């Protein structure tokens, strides 16, 4: 009898194990499917344009010419502006929460960051296009997009920076203070060497987020064509913004070009994220 019961139970047990296994495997399945199905759809345009897709500045769907260089540039440039603005602020907040703030203040600050993280991208976009770009003289430009993206990636960089900074051994911080170090010297001498690598990872992760952010950028970046410039006040464009703005009127080849942009974006963000996560995870250990 006992053997029968155990047999039955073992059956259900194994079934549950496989169910859980399949659920976990879905992550890999989805990522693989994204790469495979979308790469297939991008082939027509790459067939036609070849490497020029990445090097040409001319994007004119009407003539079937697709050069994505301005969008690649815009994506990198706005993301760089966003990171340059967001990293000092995020670091400051992370240090404030972990090293300065009294215990009772920590939860409210974290809560504030949660709220900032949960404000939808499209709401920041709406605010950017109706308030920031009109009343602050920024217009729709690389800079406006960079500022909005900076606001949006600050919570994620801050929360990762906080995790990384918190792994600094208490004993080393106390040792620094015991030697007469001021708070800042303690941060430079004990916290920084421990968290350096992790903070680089957190920054890269913010970069990846900024590059993929679509809706806010689509609303405030200005949707220019062919703009490859360092002028931050010029109207620009980015890969996700082009996809969102042009999809509605796109014919087959145009859609293929937009999907090729998405594949490019996918590859870039995956690479950046893998690097960033590897660094963050290693430094947390």
């Amino acid at each position, binding site marked *: 009898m006992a053997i029968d019961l155990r047999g039955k139970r073992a059956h259900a047990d194994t079934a549950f194990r496989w169910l859980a296994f399949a659920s976990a495997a879905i992550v890999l399945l989805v990522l693989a499917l994204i790469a495979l199905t979308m790469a297939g759809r991008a082939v027509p345009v790459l067939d036609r344009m070849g490497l020029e897709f990445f090097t040409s500045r001319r994007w004119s769907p009407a003539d079937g010419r697709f050069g994505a260089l301005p969008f690649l540039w815009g994506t990198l440039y706005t993301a760089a502006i966003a990171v340059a603005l967001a990293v000092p602020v995020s670091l400051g907040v992370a240090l404030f929460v972990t090293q300065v703030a009294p215990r009772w203040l920590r939860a409210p600050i974290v809560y504030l960051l949660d709220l*900032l993280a949960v404000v939808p991208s499209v709401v920041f976009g709406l605010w950017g296009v109706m308030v920031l770009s009109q009343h602050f003289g920024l217009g729709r430009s690389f800079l406006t997009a960079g500022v909005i993206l900076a606001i949006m990636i600050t919570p994620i960089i801050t929360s990762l920076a906080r995790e990384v900074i918190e792994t600094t051994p208490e004993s080393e911080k106390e040792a620094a203070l015991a030697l007469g170090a001021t708070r*800042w010297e303690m941060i430079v001498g004990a916290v920084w060497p421990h968290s350096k690598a992790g903070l680089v990872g957190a920054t890269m992760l913010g970069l990846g987020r900024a590059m993929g952010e679509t809706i806010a950028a689509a609303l405030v970046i200005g949707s220019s064509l062919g703009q490859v410039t360092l002028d931050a006040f010029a109207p620009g464009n980015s890969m996700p913004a082009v996809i969102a703005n042009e999809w509605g009127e796109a014919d087959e080849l145009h859609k293929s070009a937009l999907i090729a942009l998405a594949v490019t974006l996918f590859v870039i963000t995956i690479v950046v994220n893998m690097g960033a996560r590897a660094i963050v995870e290693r430094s947390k250990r």
Partner: protein
Amino acid sequence: MIGTVTATDLRPRRSWRRVKSSIMTCLMGAALVAIVIPLAAVLWALFDKGAGVAFRSFPDFFTAEIPVVSRRAGPGMGPAIVGTLLVTTGAALLAVPLGILGAVYLHEYGRGSRFAGLVRFMAMVMTGVPSIVMGLFVYVIWTMRFGYSAFGGSLGLACLMLPIVIGSTEQMLRLVPNPLREASYALGASKARTILTIVLPAASPGIVSGCLLAIARAAGETAPLLFTVGAASAYNPHLFEEANTALSAQIFGNATASFVAAQDRAWGAALTLVMLTFVATLAARLLFSRKRSA
């Protein structure tokens, strides 16, 4: 004379080191102010421009249909609210069970295995995949065959939520003390039974909180809906049939409209959406803090 060396000699008040430390502390405080300002500015703009539109002739804005001609003034985000709830519920029904089961595998079965490590890592990487890529992916595998529907949007949002649910759930499973599991085994329970009746209930406040946060995030997403949900201005309560709409898609569409009436509706919709997501976030936080203090 050893006794004459005083504390003030050792730590002179005006030393540059102390001043520098104070300056840096102030800068950290300033950074905090720097994140409060945009949040406050956005919320202020929402209430300033959205509250009037949304609450003028309560509850019309939340129940009326969307005007077909966008320059016409008047209320109406009802269909978009229903659409958002529908799309998000569909996404939650897909992503929450899969995410929790996936996390169970990672922590309860595969702990330390190479496969679990790979999935854990790729799930973290997946949180960084841009939402617009998910949207196009769903367009390619679903919308091209079955047409616009709320469910297409659900699939896109589920792709975004899945790795977040896995990550937060696994973290909560880690907090469940091992003796609980061992006690259950000692009573003769199988592993599956232990997980379902002991481990998951013990971790449930944290898991629910994590799922609510993921849902709140997803509810505000626009990019995955652009290619999959289509457009509609009338109520469509069907998950699998016909084009639908959502608050986020309405905001995106109206934000660049040149008609004041459309812009007003965008602000009203934005206020509604932010209220929805904030309520979910608040609920999540309250739930989790109660668990911590208990």
